């Protein structure tokens, strides 16, 4: 009989989406006062106030009564249970509600409806280093951050050496963290969070930053936590990490629980059925964060040589990826990036639309307007299977306007590709048409003739 660690029933969270990039995210007193005044007026003389409200809305477009503001259910009708000691994966596209779910479970925000029940202390690695103060030293921040995460002082005292050793910043522990490199900062922050010993650990994607060595360490630490019988919720876009660490996973889609299944099945579902198989993906307003402005992604599509949008491409044919977007203001040094990943989330290549020096110089400033960046995928490039395309719009070293790690998925069909006379699965994501030569070199060498006779006995030991 297993004990329940987390029970979630009909959980829902609604957000108001009054905030557009141009409008302030918070209310001002004036709005609330004028709103209160207006509703009072409305009660007394409804015809007049209606005209007023209408004219005001029409003219400035910034007066929207609270009740009429558009809302969005970030999460709706979610029900599941997690037995103690399970490592449960949570997968879903951007805006599917993963972060909202984790925020509710770690009590950062309240649900709008339904309820959740959590047995034991929840430690969240929603964002490592929260509460770190740049002016304080590594030692001071360790204590402060530990306290914020809910550790007792005595607990931190006990684990301090272990934390410092894990973070590998011994030498700089009494230096203000503002002088740390971003790697050191991250290592210390993760070390503190990782040494918290909650009954339930909630881990979000953010851990995937840092160098490969650090990531390996983080994942190792997580496996350790899982092995001690604690419950872990693991959110990631990295399908191989999800498959390595979890046996079961939830798939969230548009705020709903689409599937709960053994991880293999969940990943397959997510990669195939979870996506629209139309060969194109148009971004909804709720998938575009306010911080993307002035960049606005419109659509990404896979197009064949004939100009038709396709979901499946032939390995032997050339095809194009088109990214359509708009700029409401010029951006200097903008580059549109394309990330090709295998269905398991392993990267195949990264490319930017201004990779070539000519385009780089010709488009150093991209004026406001509508654009399509088109990338040609040459023939004989990819092996058969399912692939994912990620999109990113950024300026080098400055700002990332928008990213969608999994904007589009497509199939590659290998018929006609090299080696298809054998019906076997080939390893590796690429299937190039390599040129081979087979050259006859005259007679058989004498030793070989000889060895053939004694091969059964000594040939293998030799």
């Amino acid at each position, binding site marked *: 009989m297993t004990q329940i660690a987390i029970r979630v029933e009909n959980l829902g969270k609604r957000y108001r989406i009054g905030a557009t990039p141009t409008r302030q995210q918070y209310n001002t007193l004036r709005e609330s006062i004028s709103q209160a005044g207006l509703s009072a007026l409305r009660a007394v003389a409804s015809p007049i106030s209606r005209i007023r409200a209408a004219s005001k809305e029409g003219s400035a477009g910034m007066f929207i009564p609270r009740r009429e503001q558009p809302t969005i259910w970030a999460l709706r009708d979610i029900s599941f249970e997690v037995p103690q000691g399970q490592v449960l994966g949570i997968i879903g596209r951007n805006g599917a509600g993963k972060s909202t779910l984790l925020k509710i479970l770690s009590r950062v925000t309240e649900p709008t409806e339904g309820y959740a029940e*959590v*047995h034991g202390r929840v430690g969240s690695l929603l964002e490592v280093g929260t509460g770190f103060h740049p002016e*304080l030293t590594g030692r001071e921040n360790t204590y402060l951050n530990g306290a914020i995460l809910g550790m007792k002082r005595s607990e931190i005292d006990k684990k301090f050496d272990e934390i410092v050793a894990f973070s590998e910043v011994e030498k700089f522990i009494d230096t203000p963290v503002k002088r740390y490199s971003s790697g050191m900062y991250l290592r210390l922050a993760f070390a503190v969070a990782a040494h918290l010993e909650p009954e339930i650990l909630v881990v979000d994607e953010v851990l995937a930053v840092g160098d490969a060595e650090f990531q390996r360490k983080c994942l190792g630490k997580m496996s350790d936590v899982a092995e001690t019988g604690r419950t872990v919720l693991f959110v990631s876009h990295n399908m191989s990490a999800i498959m390595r660490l979890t046996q079961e996973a939830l798939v969230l889609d548009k705020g709903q629980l689409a599937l709960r299944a053994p991880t293999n099945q969940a990943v397959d579902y997510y990669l195939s059925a979870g996506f629209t198989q139309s060969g194109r993906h148009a971004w909804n307003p709720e998938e575009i964060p306010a911080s993307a402005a002035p960049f606005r992604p419109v659509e990404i599509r896979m197009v064949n040589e004939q100009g038709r949008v396709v979901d499946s491409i032939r390995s032997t044919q050339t095809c194009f990826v088109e990214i359509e977007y708009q700029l409401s203001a010029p951006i200097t040094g903008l580059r549109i990036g394309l990330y090709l990943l295998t269905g398991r989330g392993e990267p195949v290549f990264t490319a930017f639309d201004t990779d070539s020096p000519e385009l780089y110089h010709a488009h150093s400033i991209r004026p406001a307007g509508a654009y399509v960046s088109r990338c040609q995928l040459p023939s004989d490039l990819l092996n058969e299977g399912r692939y994912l395309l990620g999109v990113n719009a950024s300026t080098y070293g400055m700002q990332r306007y928008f990213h969608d790690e999994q904007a589009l998925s497509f199939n590659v069909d290998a018929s006609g590709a090299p080696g298809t006379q054998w019906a076997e699965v080939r390893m590796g994501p690429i299937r190039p048409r390599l040129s081979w030569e087979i050259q006859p070199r005259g007679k058989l060498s004498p030793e070989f003739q000889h060895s053939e006779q004694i091969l059964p006995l000594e040939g293998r030991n030799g």
Partner: protein
Amino acid sequence: MFSGTNPTNQPSLNQPAPSKIAAAEEVFYMRPSKGWANLNLFELWRYRELIYFLTWRDLKVRYKQTILGALWAVLQPVLTMVVFTIFFGRLAKVPSDNIPYPIFSYTALLPWGLFTKAIGDAGRSLVSNRAMITKIYFPRLAIPLASVLSGVVDFAIAFSVLLVMIFYYNNLPGGEYQVALTARIWTLPLFLLLALVTALGAGLWLSALNVNYRDINHILPFITQFWLFITPIVYPTSMVPERWQLIYALNPMAGVVEGFRWALLNSNAAPSYMLGVSAAIALALLVSGLFYFRRMERTFADTV
């Protein structure tokens, strides 16, 4: 497409079904809260170490990378006292109940400095700690509380200067003004507490309002300035006409300042029923602030 791994997944709307749990374990429930939340001060007590660390952080950070460091805690009230003495004491000849003007105003500036610093810091505290609020759970009350408490250390430093001033006046050759510290000084912590209660009450209101209405950032300096004039800092309460005294006492800081002068300088304005009025107002401010804060708290992470 729903997999059958969860056979007990029956919606049972509001009533949580009893789960199989170990007895000693903590269970947290997350559900939409309705109406006025309960204060749950017990939880705040459990997080007392966090309050300590946040206070300690505020102190540490305040004077990092400054040349004068903690000396600023002394310089601010001392310089204000000098300016007040020149303009109000010498030029405007404001009466000071026969107490030398510098010591008269400095005694008032001590709790006043604590109060303005506390409401300013607390009022902005939630917004400046938004990264923590949107990522991690802890009782939000800890943040404005730590802001108020960190001011007490500055107060203590500035207080030592008052003792130096008393020593100076008592040993002034031919000085007619003498301060004899009496048993009244033991009531000082009560007046300090009254100042803290008032500051926390106002700070809670302002910080919670600031989450939704950033107007508070603009209002704060104005509030402090306005409040300075309705508090007997540059002038004695005796200047206020008798019939206005009761209304005047509605400002708890008036009671605090009068109390400080009475306890330290033996001024003849003994605490009367007016102190009771001040205390009642301060308490009302604190309790209403606590409830308002708890009520607004549930949307902090979404709106801050």
